[in-house]
């Protein structure tokens, strides 16, 4: 700890803390532009200059480490003069005519800083140079004329999403933000995560969907959790007049610290599917709008006689994008009430069942936490494409590449990580397990393991695996050496490894993990990315078996806001009687006998268990349209009508089963 004085306030901070953070802690406000708590300090804008006793000139607080006995002043007349001058220089440098800017009036850090310095004008004439405006991107616009070159976007691109698309071109006053080697953003390597837009302090990067829809002060902000995948990123839902205007990453969320991907930030806002706003009942072969009462009674009429019929009653499937509460009610209703033997999730346990069974046999978790990626020095990804799904988990790896993290990708198909991986092992399809065996054999053969090696004829295993996988021996050797020499390796797998239901691949992976020291008494360096947002909860509630129609006479699907696959729609469409509880019109709702409209992610609250066992709550940010009910309420109503009593002990139900990874449900 070091002690320092800021504006006569004494404060103690841990060693390595910057003066800026120390000042925050002491309650002293220092204006900044290029600083952002989640980004590496840069020291570019110079607005945070402070006077330090013993220093010849003022110095930027954002990059200055606090040291013992430091005496800092932040509000001297000279500093104020300098800050005004810096702001004048910035305002005059490019087109900063506030009245024409969408962030003007409270949302612009530059304008706010100027008001704080009591400036209502700047003494220099603007410098009339025109810079390009890049409007080629689908989701946002880059206007270099409003840029103050703080590089927050450049740093966000590198440090948050690890994509390294944005950079600075040219030098001095000609400096300009460019994508890749100055290609239009829309044609660049940008993956539309939007971290840059969220980081921009001015109107240089503006979100097309929310631009000019109002100032932040006229918006309502609701903290919630993204339900688009199992990573469970914290989000802030920005709404106005019951409309979602924008989604931002929650800087304070422990999972993502503000980072989001395209799926979480932009896509929900451009959802053009048709909303279901009233219950519908099939009459004379046609779905027709009905009241809730009529629709529910129709359901009761068909389902009630099937209660208690284990094999020929009601089969039920629930979406893993629905909250735990909904899933628990669903299970209570159909397993407990109707006694059906076919109550499962729409994922049918593909991403989790094998792992869960293994964990259950083990009696202990087999997976660790996402946080391990922050300190990992080597990551192996198998059976998952983190470029397409669970992207933020991928960001945690990508952003560490400059720190020297080694990346090995095993995927027979094209994988977004192929280009950045040190080893992208393209084996013959369905030989993933043989690739793992080959790596294991090399480590055993060369005695590189950290723990006692399994007994095997390493040469034979290697030769056999090489033949099956069709890989070059040098790639296997390289990957094996890289893994074996890592100090903190992490192995990530996706459903590609376990979907077959055969646990052998996973067993080999876990054996390899122990061999290289990824798993030991202190850490479990293995994680699976699972499936949808509540994949793990479905597993905990045992809603994870493969669906079979058997002799069931009716099917109830709580589809939530998902769109079923064609195959699923065909399978379920054959049911003699089909009830679909959903938010949007889909192929499946078209085939249903009764459609019950349910709220979507923004309109209901509930809990989600993310891929590493963190229980998080989503909040309601807007009201559902008239006629639409929350999903749990629909199930509760149905239970009530058929005389089933639902327990509200969903949390207890969640922890009953030994879990794949240690749960944090408090």
């Amino acid at each position, binding site marked *: 700890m070091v002690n320092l004085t800021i504006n006569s306030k004494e404060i103690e901070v841990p060693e390595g803390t910057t003066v800026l953070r120390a000042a925050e802690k002491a309650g002293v406000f220092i204006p900044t532009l290029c600083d952002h708590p989640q980004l590496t300090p840069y020291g570019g804008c110079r607005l945070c*200059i402070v006077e330090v006793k013993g220093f010849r000139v003022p110095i930027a607080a954002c*990059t200055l480490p606090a040291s013992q006995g430091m005496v800092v002043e932040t509000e001297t007349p000279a500093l104020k003069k*300098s800050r005004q001058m810096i702001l004048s220089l910035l305002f005059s440098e490019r087109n900063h005519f506030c009245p024409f800017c969408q962030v003007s009036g409270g949302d612009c850090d530059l304008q706010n800083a100027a008001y704080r310095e009591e400036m209502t004008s700047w003494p220099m004439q603007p*410098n009339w140079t025109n810079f390009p405006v890049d409007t080629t991107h689908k989701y946002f616009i880059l206007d270099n004329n409003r840029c103050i070159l703080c590089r927050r976007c450049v740093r966000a691109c590198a440090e948050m999403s690890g994509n390294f698309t944005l950079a600075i071109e040219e030098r001095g006053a000609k400096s300009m933000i460019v994508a890749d080697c100055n290609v239009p953003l829309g044609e660049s390597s940008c993956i539309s995560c939007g971290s840059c837009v969220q980081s921009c302090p001015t109107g240089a990067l503006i979100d097309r969907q929310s631009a000019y829809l109002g100032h932040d002060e006229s918006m309502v902000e609701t903290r919630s959790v993204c339900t688009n995948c199992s990573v469970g990123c914290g989000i802030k839902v920005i709404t106005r007049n019951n409309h979602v205007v924008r989604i931002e990453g929650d800087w304070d969320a422990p999972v993502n610290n503000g980072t989001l991907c395209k799926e979480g930030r932009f896509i929900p806002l451009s959802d053009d599917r048709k909303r279901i706003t009233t219950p519908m009942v099939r009459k004379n072969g046609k779905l027709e709008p009905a009241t809730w009462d009529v629709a529910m009674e129709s359901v009761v009429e068909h389902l009630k006689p099937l209660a208690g019929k284990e094999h020929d009653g009601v089969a039920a499937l629930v979406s893993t994008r629905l909250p735990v509460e909904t899933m628990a009610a669903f299970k209570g209703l159909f397993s407990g009430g109707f006694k059906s033997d076919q109550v499962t999730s729409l994922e049918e346990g593909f991403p989790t069942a094998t792992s869960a069974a293994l964990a259950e046999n083990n009696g202990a978790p087999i997976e660790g936490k996402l946080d391990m990626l922050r300190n990992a020095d080597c990551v192996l990804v198998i059976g998952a494409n983190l470029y397409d799904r669970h992207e933020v988990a991928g960001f945690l790896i990508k952003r560490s590449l400059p720190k020297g993290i080694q990346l090995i990708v095993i995927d027979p198909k094209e994988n977004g990580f192929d280009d950045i991986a040190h080893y992208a092992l393209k084996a013959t399809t369905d030989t993933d397990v043989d690739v793992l065996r080959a790596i294991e054999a090399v480590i055993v053969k060369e005695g590189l393991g950290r723990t006692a090696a399994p007994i095997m004829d390493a040469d034979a295993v290697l030769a056999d695996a090489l033949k099956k996988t069709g890989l070059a021996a040098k790639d296997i050797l390289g990957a094996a050496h890289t893994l074996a020499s890592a100090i903190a390796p992490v192995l990530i797998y996706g459903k590609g490894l376990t979907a077959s239901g055969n646990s052998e691949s996973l067993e080999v992976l876990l054996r390899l993990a122990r061999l290289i020291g990824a798993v030991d008494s202190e850490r479990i360096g293995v994680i699976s990315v699972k499936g949808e947002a509540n994949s793990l909860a479905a597993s905990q509630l045992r809603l994870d078996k493969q669906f079979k129609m058997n002799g069931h006479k009716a099917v109830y699907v709580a589809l939530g806001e998902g769109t079923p696959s064609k195959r699923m729609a065909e399978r379920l469409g054959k049911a003699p009687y089909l009830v679909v509880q959903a938010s949007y019109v889909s192929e499946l709702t078209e085939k249903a006998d009764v459609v019950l409209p349910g709220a979507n992610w923004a309109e209901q609250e509930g809990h989600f268990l993310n891929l590493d066992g963190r229980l998080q709550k989503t909040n309601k940010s807007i009201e559902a349209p008239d006629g639409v009910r929350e999903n749990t309420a629909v199930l509760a109503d149905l239970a009530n009508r058929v005389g089933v009593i639902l327990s509200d002990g969903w949390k207890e139900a969640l922890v009953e089963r030994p879990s794949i990874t240690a749960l944090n449900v408090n």
Partner: protein
Amino acid sequence: MKFARSMVLVSNDPESLRRGAQQVYDRFAKEIAAHGLGEEVALSQISDAGRFDTLPMVIIYPEAAAYGPVTENDVARIVEEHLYKGRLVEDLLAPVRELSGRIGWLKMRKGAMPAEKRIVLRRAGRIDPESIEDYIAEEGFAALAKALTELSPAQVIDVLEKSGLQGRGGAGFPAGRKWRFVAGTAGPKKYVVCNADESEPGTFKDRVILEGDPYAIVEALTIAAYSVGADEGFIYVRGEYQLAQHRLEHAIEQAHAYGLLGKNIMGTNFSLELHVHSGAGAYVCGEETALLESIEGKRGEPRARPPYPTTHGLWGKPTLVNNVETLANVPPILVNGAEWYRQFGTPSSPGTKTYTILGNVNFTGLIEVPMGITLREIINIYGHGMKDDATFKMAQTGGSSGSIIPASLQDTPMDFESFRKAGVSLGSGALLVCDERTCVVDLAKVLLNFFRTECCGKCTPCRVGTERSYLVFDQISKGQANLEDLDTLLKLAEQLEQVSNCGLGQTAAVPVRDTLKYFRAEVEAHIRLGVCPTGVCHLTRESAPAHSMA
């Protein structure tokens, strides 16, 4: 080592090479051998001979005859006529009346200058820079041997501290103290870096050392690494210095072969790997933290300091960064001792300093003189007086980032302390001498144009301040400014000096401030009278101020 009567230099900058300089060089080698002149004539290459239109250029000493452009077919005639028969080949002479200052140093190889004392340049031009044996014969690696076998790392630093050697990159920080800082840091991994990104306009002292005595840098870096506990080092060489890079790489290769680099140097358990890293043309990469960023493969932008490279340098590890000239002083100090070194220069600034003399003097070139010599002496003795007997007006030191020295300060001893007291800076060692025909507004404009172009763009005061200051001087030079603009200039200069992130921005204020401090009347004449007293600026009053700052 041989003493040649003639020396043939063939230019080998990229443009020359494109035009066939290598073939010219090869042909010279062949023809010289064919004429049996191998023992008498030395053949070597130089980079950047100075004139674009005459490339590839061939310069032959001691006559200092410059031929160019020379083609392969001209070589036989030059060898036959000039080297064999001793006659100039008039029709091939380059259309230059005298040689560019940038190669003039070779004229003085004989050490004919009065008080000149050569320490860092003592071998340049005398040994074959591609022969490690030449170097060893001239006291080479004696200092390293002494350090490794007789002295502990701490003792080496003691000697260096006692010698009083100061950094020759411009700031004059005591070298020994810097070494001690790095030596005092913990950690198994440390780096030593030689800053050879000499990019100050008109400064080429480092180039001459690197090209003429590359082993000295290899040896000095090895001593430095031994003293501070580093096992890896980089020599960051300006991109244009291709010959220097080649010679350094060659020197490193040879040192490896002789067991003077690599594992277990001289049979001790000290090991070091050196790498040559080429710059890519950014002036700001001469700033040590930007240089480190550049080596790391990032955009060359200066870091925030503190923390300093001595604790958080290359890849976050403690790093010693020294300028070429500083390092070149180290081996002779170790061999001869601190006391020997202190007999040169002044008590506060011991040793010698190299200067490149440029501008309106009769002789331009590179000299190495003891610290404490005055500007007047340099101009009169080494510069052979002002050109056309014009009156001295000012000198600009240290490339762009130095100070403007008015006539009133020309008797100030040129050492770090005296200059600091006088409020000016010694800079990197370029001396641009200007006579009364030079316009200060024009000079300031040129300097600021350089800064605004070379500013990395990271920090606001420098990025906008240099641009704005340039625009004001541009307006003054066109007669479009008003007196309030001078206040703006001073305000800009103050912020540049106070708030900029690195030395580039801080020194960009110097020409602004110095111009207004020493030559305000001349600047005001542009504004008040609409006249450029020297007649350099073309004032056009008719157009209204387009970019008035006030």
